[in-house]
C-alpha cells in the first residue's frame, strides 16, 4: 500500500516538475507546481508529518501559488521566447546538473543505516510539534513573526507606484 502510494505520488511530483520546465506559458508552469506541492503533501503524510502536510496544502498550494497565479494574470505574462542565453544555459547547465544529481545519488545510495518507512509508523502529532515549538524554539518563532511583518511592509512599499514615478508623470 505504502509502495503504491509512494510510486503514484512521486510520479505525480516528478511529472509536475518536468512539466513545469517544458511549459512555455507561466500559468501552466504555476499549475504544474501546484500538482507538485499537493503530491508532496501526501508524501509528508506517508512520512508521518500530518501538520506539515496540512501546512503544505494551505501555505504553499494555497497562499503562495495563489500569489503566483495572481501576479501572472496581473502582469499578463506571455510565452517566453528562446534566446541565445537560454541555449547556452541548456548546453552548459544540463551536464552540470546531471553531474550534481549523480554525485548526490551515489552519496545517498552508499549511505549506511538509513531506515525504511511503513504505514504503521508513529505519526508526529501537532501536539508534539507545538510542545517543542513553543518551549524550546519560542524565540525563533517570535522572530519569524517580525520577519513576516517586515515582508508585508516591504511588499506593500515595493509594489505600489513609487513617488518618483508620480513626480515624473506630473
Amino acid at each position: 500500500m505504502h509502495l503504491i502510494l509512494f510510486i503514484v505520488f512521486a510520479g505525480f511530483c516528478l511529472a509536475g516538475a518536468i512539466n513545469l520546465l517544458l511549459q512555455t506559458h507561466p500559468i501552466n508552469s504555476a499549475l504544474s507546481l501546484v500538482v507538485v506541492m499537493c503530491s508532496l503533501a501526501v508524501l509528508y503524510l506517508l512520512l508521518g508529518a500530518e501538520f506539515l502536510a496540512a501546512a503544505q496544502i494551505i501555505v504553499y498550494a494555497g497562499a503562495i501559488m495563489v500569489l503566483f497565479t495572481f501576479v501572472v494574470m496581473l502582469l499578463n505574462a506571455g510565452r517566453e521566447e528562446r534566446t541565445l542565453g537560454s541555449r547556452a544555459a541548456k548546453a552548459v547547465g544540463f551536464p552540470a546538473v546531471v553531474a550534481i544529481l549523480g554525485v548526490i545519488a551515489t552519496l545517498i545510495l552508499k549511505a549506511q543505516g538509513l531506515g525504511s518507512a511503513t504505514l504503521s509508523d508513529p505519526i508526529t502529532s501537532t501536539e508534539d510539534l507545538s510542545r517543542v515549538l513553543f518551549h524550546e524554539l519560542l524565540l525563533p518563532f517570535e522572530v519569524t513573526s517580525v520577519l513576516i511583518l517586515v515582508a508585508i511592509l516591504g511588499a506593500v512599499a515595493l509594489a505600489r507606484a513609487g513617488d518618483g514615478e508620480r513626480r515624473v508623470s506630473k
Partner: protein
Amino acid sequence: MIPLSWYLLLSAALFCLGVIGFLIKRNLITVFMSIELMLNGVNLSFVTFAHQWHLVKGQIFVFFVMVVAAAEAAVGLAIIIAVFRARSTLAVDRIDLMKL
C-alpha cells in the same frame, strides 16, 4: 515498506529539476517558481531525516522554511511587479541594467 533513500532520491531529483528550471527558463516568474521547487525538494529531505531519527525539530525546520518561503514570495513578487512597471518586460535577458 520502502527504504528512506527513495525519498531522498526524489528530493534530490526535485532539487536538480529546480536548478535546471532556474538555469533554462527565461521568464522572471518561472525562474522564481523554480526556486520554490528547490525549496520543496529540500523540505522533503528534512522531513525524511526527521522520520529517520524520530526527531521533531526537522519538521519544525520545514515549518520555518515555509514561513521564509512565504515572506520571500511576497517580497519577490512585489519586486517583479516593480521591475515590470519600470521595464514592461519579464524576460530575464532584457533585465540586465540596475539603473532605471
